[in-house]
C-alpha cells in the first residue's frame, strides 16, 4: 500500500453542476449531461465523479459515476448509468436545470502507452461507461481503436454510434443472441485474439467482475497488457474511508484501494472480487 495521498484526488473539486440534458438509452439506462467549469478541464479518461444524488440522509453516501464523455470546449461532461436502487432513481428524477452536487474528478484513469498499433476496448454491460472518454483521448493521438461490447440484450446498443462516430470498429455480443455474436464478450474476443496479439496492442476494460477475471486470464495467456477499471463499494472516494479495498497480486500482505490506486489497474496488480 502506498501510504501517500493520491495526487489526482488532491486536485479534486467539491462543486455544483447544472443538469443540461437527460436521455433514456433503455427503460433503465440513462445518459446525463452536466455543465460544470471547474471539473471538466481536469477529467482524465477513467476517472470518476462522486455525486450526492439528493440533499438527504437516505441515501446518505455519494454515488461514484464514471465519466462517459467530456466536452471541454462547452464545459460539460456526461455520465451513463442504470437505475438500480433508490440513489440512482433519485438522480434520474433530477429536473433539467437543477443543481447537481459533484465531487471530482477522482481516482487514477487509463494510461495510453506511446507505442500502440491499436487499442482494444472490452466492455461488459455498463462497463462501457468509462470507455468513450478513453476513445476521445485515443482519437487525439490517432490510435486505431476496436471495441468488443457484450450485453444481456441488444437494447443498450444504440450508443454504439457514439463510438462509431469516432472511427471505432465495433464488435457486439449478446447473451441471448438477439444481436451480434451469440455469447459473452470474452468468448467473442477469444475468436480473434490470435490475430490481435500479432500487433502491439493494449486491452482497456470495464465490466462485471466475472468477466474481468476471464479477461485477465486471456490477457495473461496471450501476453497482452490489460488495464482494468474496477467498481466497488466506497464511502468517500478520496482515500479516507478505506472501504474500497481489492486484493493485491503484487503484495499479498496488502490491499489496493480503488479510489486511491485505481479505479484503473494493470491486470497483474489486482484480482477482481467474485
Amino acid at each position: 500500500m502506498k501510504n501517500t495521498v493520491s495526487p489526482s484526488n488532491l486536485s479534486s473539486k467539491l462543486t455544483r453542476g447544472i443538469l443540461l440534458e437527460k436521455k433514456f438509452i433503455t427503460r433503465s439506462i440513462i445518459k446525463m449531461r452536466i455543465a460544470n467549469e471547474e471539473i471538466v478541464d481536469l477529467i482524465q479518461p477513467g476517472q470518476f465523479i462522486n455525486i450526492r444524488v439528493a440533499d438527504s440522509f437516505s441515501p446518505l453516501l455519494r454515488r461514484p459515476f464514471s465519466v462517459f464523455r467530456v466536452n471541454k470546449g462547452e464545459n460539460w461532461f456526461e455520465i451513463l448509468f442504470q437505475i438500480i436502487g433508490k440513489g440512482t432513481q433519485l438522480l434520474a428524477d433530477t429536473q433539467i436545470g437543477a443543481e447537481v452536487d459533484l465531487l471530482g474528478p477522482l481516482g487514477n484513469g487509463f494510461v495510453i502507452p506511446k507505442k500502440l498499433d491499436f487499442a482494444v476496448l472490452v466492455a461488459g454491460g455498463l462497463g462501457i461507461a468509462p470507455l468513450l472518454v478513453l476513445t476521445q483521448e485515443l482519437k487525439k493521438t490517432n490510435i486505431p481503436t476496436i471495441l468488443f461490447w457484450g450485453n444481456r440484450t441488444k437494447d443498450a446498443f444504440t450508443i454504439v454510434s457514439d463510438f462509431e462516430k469516432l472511427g471505432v470498429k465495433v464488435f457486439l455480443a449478446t447473451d441471448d443472441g438477439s444481436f451480434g455474436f451469440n455469447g459473452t464478450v470474452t468468448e467473442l474476443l477469444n475468436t480473434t485474439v490470435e490475430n490481435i496479439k500479432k500487433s502491439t496492442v493494449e486491452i482497456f476494460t470495464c465490466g462485471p467482475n466475472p468477466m474481468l477475471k476471464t479477461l485477465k486470464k486471456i490477457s495473461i495467456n496471450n501476453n497482452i497488457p490489460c488495464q482494468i477499471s474496477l467498481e466497488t463499494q466506497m464511502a468517500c472516494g478520496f482515500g479516507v474511508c478505506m472501504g474500497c479495498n481489492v486484493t493485491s497480486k503484487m503484495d499479498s500482505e496488502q490491499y489496493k484501494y480503488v479510489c486511491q490506486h485505481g479505479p484503473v489497474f494493470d491486470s497483474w496488480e489486482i484480482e477482481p472480487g467474485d
Partner: protein
Amino acid sequence: MIDLSVKIGGLKFANPILTASGTFGSGEEFSHFFDLNHLGGIVSKAVTPEPRIGNPSPRIAETPCGMLNSIGLTNAGVKQFVKEKLPFLQSLETKVIVNVAGKTIDDFSTVIKNIEDAGGVDGYEINISCPNVKEGGMAFGVDPIITGKITGQTRNATDKCLIVKLSPNVTSISDIAIAAENEGADGLSVINTLVGMAVDVNTKRPKLATVKGGLSGPAIKPVAIAKVFEVVNAVKIPVIGVGGIMELNDVLEFLITGATAIQVGTANFVSPQISEQLVFDLKNYCQKNSIQTMADIIGSLKI
C-alpha cells in the same frame, strides 16, 4: 468578541469542532477542500504498533441514514505514521490528537512512546471501542477493569491530553467512563460505532465480509445523545460528543446535552468541507443569539 474555545484537560481548542478518527485520514486528504486550521482539532486515523492490512472486502454497506463499516484499523503502523503522516500534522496550527489502538494493553503505550519521541502532537485518543478487530478493540472497552488499566498505563506514558473513546455496546457506559476518569483520563469521546449487521436478501449473505460491523451516521445520533447524557452525569471530566453529526443543530444538541466538544465523522465522507462549515455556522449562531462563550451553551439542557 465571541470566544468559541473549549478546554479538555490542559488543552485549549480554538472551537469545539473536531473530526472523528477514521473519517479524516491524517488530514492531508482534506487539505485542498479547506484550511484545516479553522478546526478546533483533528483526530487521526487509528495508529497501532505494527502495520495492519485490515479486513477483507466488502468493508462498507450503506443502511438507512447510516453506514456499516468493518475496515479493521487499517494503518501502516506507528513507525510509518511518524515518518509519513506526522510531518503534515505537525505543520498544522490546529490541535492534533492521535487515535491509538492495539491488540494488547501494552500496545497503547508503545504507540504513544514512539510518537512522544517524535513530538508535535497535542494529545491522544485511546481507542478501546473498535468493534471490527478480533483482538483488543471493543473487548477492552466493555470491561471497566481493563479500561482502567489501559488508561492508567497510557496516562503514565504521556503528560499530554488523554482522551478515552468509549463504546456504546455496553450495559453501563457510566461504569466504563468512571473507570477511565479514575485512572487519569482528561476527557471521554462518546460514542464509537454501534455493532450492526445487514443481509443481502438476494444472495442471503451478510453485506460485510466480517458479517458484523460498526454503524455510524445520523441513524445513531439519538443513541449518542443518550450516552453523552449518561456520561456527563457520571463524571466530572469533559465529554466529546460523537455520532451522526451532519449539521449545526446536531452540534448544538450535543453541546446542550453537556458535551464540551464534538467530532464530525461519517459526514466527512459525504461533505468533505462540512467540519469547517460547522465552525462558521456555530460562530454565526452565537452571534445571532448573543452567546459570548461556549459555557453559555454547554450543559444548558432543561429537564
